């Protein structure tokens, strides 16, 4: 009963936020709707009995990734761009508007349902009778046991991965004064040269 209500409200939040996220032109609003999606997914994890994963979702995504995204949007101006290279598609009146998103979504949905229809025997093969009990076991300790026994290599390697990500991203994002020489526009150099000759 309660899990049904939780599932319904969380999925409503997810679907509404998804639609709004595609709809809006404002990147800042899009990021806030992403927040709604992430909280909804955390709610779905709760209905699946994955309390630790749900809390992790809220902690890492809401506390970290969304704030990082907001910082990055602030840093880069947060403009919404039109297509430059796709000339033929750009000529279509619908390209780049909210109708595009609608049509794209509808097409992709149809495509997805067709895929599900063709591969439905896989789903029926995997379907398992659901346990009717509303109880779930505590997951944190079991996750800890799995992390130090079966998945201990992945656990340790993930720390190395994160170290690599930290070092790499810090090197890339570190404020620098110089522009790399090879990234200077070529025609700009030509112009200076030409002026010297004259």
């Amino acid at each position, binding site marked *: 009963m*309660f*899990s049904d209500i*939780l599932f319904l409200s969380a999925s409503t939040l997810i679907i509404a936020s998804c639609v709004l996220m595609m709809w809006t032109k404002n990147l800042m609003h899009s990021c806030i709707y992403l927040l709604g999606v992430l909280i909804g997914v955390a709610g779905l994890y*709760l*209905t699946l*009995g994955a*309390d*630790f994963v749900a809390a*992790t979702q809220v*902690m*890492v995504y809401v*506390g*970290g*990734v969304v*704030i*990082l995204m907001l*910082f*990055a949007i*602030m*840093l*880069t*101006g*947060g403009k919404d761009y039109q297509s430059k290279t796709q000339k033929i598609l750009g000529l279509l009146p619908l390209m780049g508007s909210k109708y595009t998103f609608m049509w794209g979504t509808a097409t992709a949905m149809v495509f997805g349902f067709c895929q599900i229809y063709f591969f439905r025997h896989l789903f029926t093969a995997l379907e398992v009778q659901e346990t009717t009990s*509303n*109880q*779930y*076991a*505590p997951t*944190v*300790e079991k*996750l*800890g*046991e799995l*992390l*130090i026994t079966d998945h*201990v290599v992945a*656990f*340790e390697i*993930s*720390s*190395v991965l*994160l*170290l690599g*990500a*930290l*070092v790499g*991203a*810090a090197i890339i*994002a*570190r*404020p*620098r*004064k*110089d522009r790399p020489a090879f990234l200077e526009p070529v025609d700009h150099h030509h112009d200076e040269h030409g002026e010297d000759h004259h």
Partner: protein
Amino acid sequence: MSNQSLNAFMPIIVMMILAAGLYGVALLVAYIVSPRKPGGNKDLPYECGEVPVGSAWSMFNVRFYVVGLIFIIFDVESVLMFPVASIFRKMNEMGEGTYILIIFLSFISVLLEGIAYCWKKGDLDWVKSYKRSVDN
């Protein structure tokens, strides 16, 4: 820690409803009670009496991003450490203390390497990060 039913999460939903309710009721009461006299210069952003020039939504320094970056890596590492930390005591009582200590410390040592790198390269400084990174 025992088996819990899903109803254990009910209070969280209740508190979410209450937060929304508190916000809605407060706004509603204020809407009824408070005066509304728009116009004048009071809906300009406050800049100590000057008329504001331009929008505030401009680009700012990248060091806020670097702080967020270091934070998110440490955040994720601490999240991964939580399940291991929660069974530390149990494993110690089972006599596997040294094994889990080695796993735990090797994970933390990588964390320490990260903070040492950022410290050395000046990413943890707020003011000098620009100068020092140009020197490097």
